[in-house]
């Protein structure tokens, strides 16, 4: 049966059920199955392949072919816990085998050493649950390296990068005009531009094709497997072991436990909404920083009245979205940013939080113009442009090839009231409580966004923009980076999982995805999610082999 996807019987107890086939779930499924364990992966979305991808802006972006569908899975949103939440879209995530790694822009920044120990260096911050991670950069470094080499990352270290044990496996992708302009502007300002690390292969790698520079990375699936999604990399490897079954269109309704407080398996709806119970010795929850928390809250029982693994009460809390400080510049000549990958150069001069600024925050800058024709014409022109008619058409013609954004990717502080919870009224199409999002940026989060908008405008000026303008800054009510809702920690009263991603309350439940984050990083979480996943899988496999995971 080697090399073929097995079909496990629901009644037989498999070693692991992994919930979610995204950035973390794909890695963990591959690691556990290659280590010799039987793995069933439950993914709520479809199993699409390269032939299913295209460049169709209406199908993929307008109708959201690769992401969650708010008609079937409504969200509700409110700013503060006292307000009543209104049903409206609040989170976006990849809903398919491969998860967000299939459609992401593919920026692939490691965290720096400081990200794990900021609380110790800077002290506490009022109005936040700012804390150190229970692991250091040095502990995670081997797994960053493993992720980069197994998945295929193109890049070149820059002056602010943390130490690394191996170089990048692939050289950077060719520079684009926005990267060249970033370099010119940054050097004039005394900053230090560097090539962007990207999860897109610049040369053929492990049987996959090099990038053909078609330009349809962000929001789209890659037709030639050049984007290093889990769909194109580790998931096929997991299937090749003959021990991993991917079950798409499987919508989990409950993680089931016994009277001893151990996980016994997972109840889910199949494509026809028939209820199925899959028994397992242990469960690894990787459903993303929003759905992971929601599922734990839904999986309550007599033994776990506040939701599974939630004796601390912090499941769903400390949600972080990251921030974005955006400006746009127009240049005399054509950049043609619609070609090739979104980002080729970045700036990390302002990565660290600087107490001299008077507030907490840091980030990185890139330049890009990652909008497709329809989205461009509907939403990105300067605000003084007429909305229709001859002058609108003139503007359409002028800006598309000559524009770029400066994009500051910024920190969000972990604020306890910012959270995922269950809406008391709204339900999803399966009759389960809808996800309720409560979110109001910490004042420092808005200040650091403003700081990066200003740096962006300086950069555009230095690069010679003929026209430039800033995007308005406002409180966020929508997130695509879903972080912090089941934070790692040594204190079981203030965290959900320990430093090995094992739930403090449930010895055969592991949780690993963006929910594990203690702090937000600088707006590029995927690399760290995957390094954590490699590390978690290593420890889970070790514990399972040593008989340390007792099932029911």
């Amino acid at each position, binding site marked *: 049966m080697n090399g073929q996807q097995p079909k496990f019987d629901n009644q037989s107890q498999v070693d692991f059920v992994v919930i979610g086939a995204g950035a973390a779930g794909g890695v963990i499924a591959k690691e556990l199955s290659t280590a010799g364990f039987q793995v069933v992966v439950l993914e709520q979305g479809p199993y699409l392949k390269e*032939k299913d991808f*295209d*460049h*169709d*802006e*209406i199908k993929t972006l*307008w*109708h959201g072919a690769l992401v969650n569908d708010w008609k079937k899975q409504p969200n509700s949103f409110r700013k503060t816990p006292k307000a009543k939440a209104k049903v409206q879209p609040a989170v976006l995530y990849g809903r398919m085998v491969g998860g967000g790694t299939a459609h992401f822009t593919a920026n692939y920044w490691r965290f720096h050493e400081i990200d794990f120990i900021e609380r110790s260096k800077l002290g506490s911050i009022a109005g936040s649950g700012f804390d150190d991670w229970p692991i250091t950069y040095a502990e995670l470094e081997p797994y960053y390296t493993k992720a980069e080499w197994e998945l295929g990352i193109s890049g070149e270290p820059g002056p602010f990068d943390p130490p690394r044990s191996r170089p990048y496996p692939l050289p950077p992708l*060719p*520079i*684009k*005009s*926005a*990267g*060249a*302009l970033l*370099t*010119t502007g940054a050097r004039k300002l005394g900053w230090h531009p560097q090539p962007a690390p990207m999860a897109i292969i610049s040369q*053929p790698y492990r049987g996959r*094709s*090099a990038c*053909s*520079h*078609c*330009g349809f990375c962000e929001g789209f699936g890659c*037709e*030639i497997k050049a984007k290093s999604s889990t769909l194109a990399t580790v998931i096929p490897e997991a299937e090749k072991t003959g021990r991993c079954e991917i079950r798409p269109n499987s919508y989990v309704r409950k993680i089931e436990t016994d009277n001893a407080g151990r996980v016994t398996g997972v109840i889910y709806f199949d494509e026809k909404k028939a209820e199925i119970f899959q028994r397992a010795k242990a469960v690894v929850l990787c459903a993303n920083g929003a759905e992971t928390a929601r599922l734990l809250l839904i999986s309550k029982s007599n033994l776990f009245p506040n939701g599974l693994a939630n004796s601390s009460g912090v499941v769903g809390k400390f949600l972080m979205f990251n921030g974005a400080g955006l400006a746009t510049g127009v*240049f005399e*000549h*054509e*950049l*043609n*940013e*619609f*070609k*090739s990958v979104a980002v080729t150069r970045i700036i990390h001069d302002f990565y660290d939080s600087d107490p001299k600024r008077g507030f907490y925050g840091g980030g990185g800058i890139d330049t890009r113009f990652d909008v497709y*024709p*329809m989205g*461009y*014409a*509907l939403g990105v022109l300067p605000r003084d442009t007429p*909305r*229709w*008619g*001859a002058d*609108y*058409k003139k503007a*359409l*013609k002028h*800006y*598309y*090839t000559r524009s770029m954004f400066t994009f500051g990717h910024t920190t969000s502080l972990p604020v306890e009231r910012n959270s995922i919870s269950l809406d008391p009224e709204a339900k999803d199409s399966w009759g389960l409580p809808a996800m309720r999002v409560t979110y109001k940026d910490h004042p420092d989060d808005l200040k650091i966004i403003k700081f990066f908008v200003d740096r962006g405008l300086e950069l555009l000026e230095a690069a010679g923009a003929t026209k430039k303008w800033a995007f308005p800054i406002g409180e966020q009510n929508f997130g695509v980076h879903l972080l912090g809702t089941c934070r790692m920690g040594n204190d079981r009263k203030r965290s959900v999982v320990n430093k090995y991603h094992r739930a403090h309350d449930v010895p055969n439940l592991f949780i690993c995805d963006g929910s594990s984050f203690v702090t937000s990083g600088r707006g590029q979480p995927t690399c760290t999610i995957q390094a954590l996943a490699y590390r978690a899988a290593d420890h889970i496999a070790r514990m399972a082999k040593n008989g340390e995971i007792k099932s029911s």
Partner: protein
Amino acid sequence: MNTEDVSRRLFLMRSLTGVSSAWLALRLPEIVAAQEHAHHAAQSAAPTKFEFLTPEQAAEVEAIAAQIIPTDDTPGAREARVIYFIDRALTTFDKDKQQQYVKGLKELQSKQKKVFKNSTKFSDLSPEQQIKVLKAFEKNPFFETVRVHTIMGFFADPSYGGNYDKVGWKLIGFNDDFYFKPPFGYYDREYKETQ
């Protein structure tokens, strides 16, 4: 593979002119497959007849669209056949906007009669008169719907019925090829030269 497939494949290989790297030789089958897929989809777009709009309604909507993206020295919404996109949208993913079109055209009609008393059809007005009516009408939600549909129809994949001959993409300088080589634009070309 039938003869037509072979000739299309050869055509696509030829259309990637000037490229003879080993890289492309290795990658070509996948790129050709992806490009064939897209081009096949685009071919199915030949407009036939209207499914929802009456010819009279279509003429009115097309006249509005033609003011949103007018024809000048380059093609506008009319040449892009945006009206076929709109008709198709109203029978597929935007079915629930059918009544807004029916009602909205009547509202436009009454607005028009306030501005130009003895006029009949919007599409019969002169371009200057049409602009005057639309300026008085642009706060109406129906106008916004037509505006969004027009822009979508001008820039969406041609397989949806609009963006005929890719005129929308040509206007802004977008190119839907599946393969590009550096340098991509003016500043990276210049950058390479000065390194």
